[in-house]
Every structure is written in C-alpha cells, then in structure tokens.
C-alpha cells in the first residue's frame, strides 16, 4: 500500500473516531470546547477528507494500470510491450519518453486550457459506457478528435532530436507544417503505427526486464 493510501486512510480513521465521539456523546457540545470540536469534526475535517479524497482519486485515475483495468483496454496495454520501434506508443513507453506509470494520460490528455478537465469528462463517459452500455471492440475504439500535434510538441518541440532530425529537415516545409498542425505527425506516413491493436497477434512482445 502506497504512503498516500495509508495517510488518507489514517485521516479517514481519525475523523471517523472523532465524529464517533460526538455521535455517542453529543452532550460534549454543551461546553465551548465541545462546540469547537463539533465544528472541526463535522465541518472542517469532512472538507479536508473530501478534498484529499478527490485529489487522490483524480491522481489514481491518471495511472496506466487504472486505464488498463477495463478489459477493452487490455490490447492497448499489450501494444505498449510490442518489440518493434516503429510502434509509436511502445517506443515511448519502453524508452520512458513518457512516465511509464501515467503513460496513457500523458499522451491522451489535452495540453490546452481545461485539458485535464476534458480528459476527466471523457473518462467518466468511458466508465458509463463500460458499465451501462455495450463497449465497442478494442480495434473499433476511435479518438474523439484527430490527434493534435500539440500533444506531441508539448515534449518534442525544442528538443534537438526533433528540431535537427534528418528526416524532419529533409523538406523545409515539414517542421512548420507539423508545428502548425497542418500535417499530422501520425497520419503523414511518418509515425502512423501507434497502437495497431488489430494486428497484435502477429507481433513479438518485449519481455520486460525484471
């Protein structure tokens, strides 16, 4: 159990015990100290618990294992271990170009204003579809919008390998077009193999070093 889990559970436990004192001995609120205690445990502590709990749940929902805990996402998790550097998601995951523990979120959040909020709204919709509707087959899952180069450029822009790469500079119009999102990094014939879950049976998987 992680430290954050333990601390949150400890806070919940302490709060529950203090509130329990008020529930079983409400007469303690007849004194001034009792009134202050009641204000702290019935108003301040629940607010702190709710705030910490919300923060904890939001942070947990960014984790790779959280995304992959739905069976529809299993092939996407498997695609991160494809032993082929042309698989964009696998190359990023295996070489830690994205933090492995929040790999899905790092690429699939939106780096514009309210991007995190929009990602959470999409996530809530996914949970709704998962539990209350018929989820699509993994290979039929599509992005809501075409992938925006902004998400790639968030990390790659300014990086030497990106700015001075031979292929990126072979055509002088290529980098400006990519930076202004007129030419997609993914569908331009350069990095078009991303997850490719429909053909996972045909590829070799990387055995993660223990």
């Amino acid at each position: 159990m992680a430290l954050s889990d333990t601390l949150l559970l400890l806070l919940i436990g302490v709060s529950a015990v203090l509130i329990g004192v008020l529930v079983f001995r409400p007469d303690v609120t007849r004194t001034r100290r009792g009134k202050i205690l009641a204000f702290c445990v019935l108003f301040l502590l629940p607010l702190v618990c709710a705030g910490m709990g919300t923060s904890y749940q939001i942070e947990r929902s960014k984790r790779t294992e959280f995304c992959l805990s739905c069976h529809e996402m299993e092939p996407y998790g498997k695609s991160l271990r494809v032993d082929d550097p042309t698989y964009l998601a696998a190359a990023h995951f295996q070489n830690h170009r994205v933090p492995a523990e929040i790999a899905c979120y790092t690429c699939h959040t939106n780096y514009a204003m309210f991007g995190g909020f929009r990602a959470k709204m999409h996530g809530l919709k996914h949970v709704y579809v998962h539990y209350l509707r018929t989820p699509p087959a993994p290979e039929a899952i599509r992005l809501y919008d075409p992938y925006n180069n902004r998400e790639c450029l968030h990390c790659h822009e300014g990086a030497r390998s990106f700015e001075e790469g031979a292929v990126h500079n072979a055509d002088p119009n290529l980098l400006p077009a990519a930076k202004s999102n007129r030419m997609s990094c993914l569908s331009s014939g350069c990095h078009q193999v991303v997850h490719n879950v429909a053909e996972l049976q045909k590829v070799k998987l990387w055995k993660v070093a223990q």
Partner: protein
Amino acid sequence: MKLSAQPLEQRLRFAGILIILGLLIEAICVLWTRPIAFLVFVGFVGALFAAGILYYLYSLVSADTGSSN
C-alpha cells in the same frame, strides 16, 4: 435552554452519522481499485458529506433561532 439543546444534539448525531457513512465509503473507494470507485466516490461520498455538513450548519442556525425566540 435545555429543551432546545436536546434536539440540537440529536441533529448533531444525525449529521455525524451521515459523515461517518461518507467516510466509510471513501475508505472503501481508496481500497477498491476499479474505475467505478471514482464514480461511487463522487456520487455517494460527495452527497453524504454535503448532506452531513449542511445538516450540521442547519442545526446550528435552527438552534440559534430557537433560543432567540
């Protein structure tokens, strides 16, 4: 004064029970690592905390009104 203190204590007790229920569900959501835990947290824990806190504040306001009357 004593007559109004009794219902106030009952209300505090009820507010406390609502919040304890919220805390219990929050603890379950921490230990339950499924995406639905997020929804349960937002829906149930949020509602129970809000109800408990608002009921506590209401009990204070109504107790004050009772004593001034």
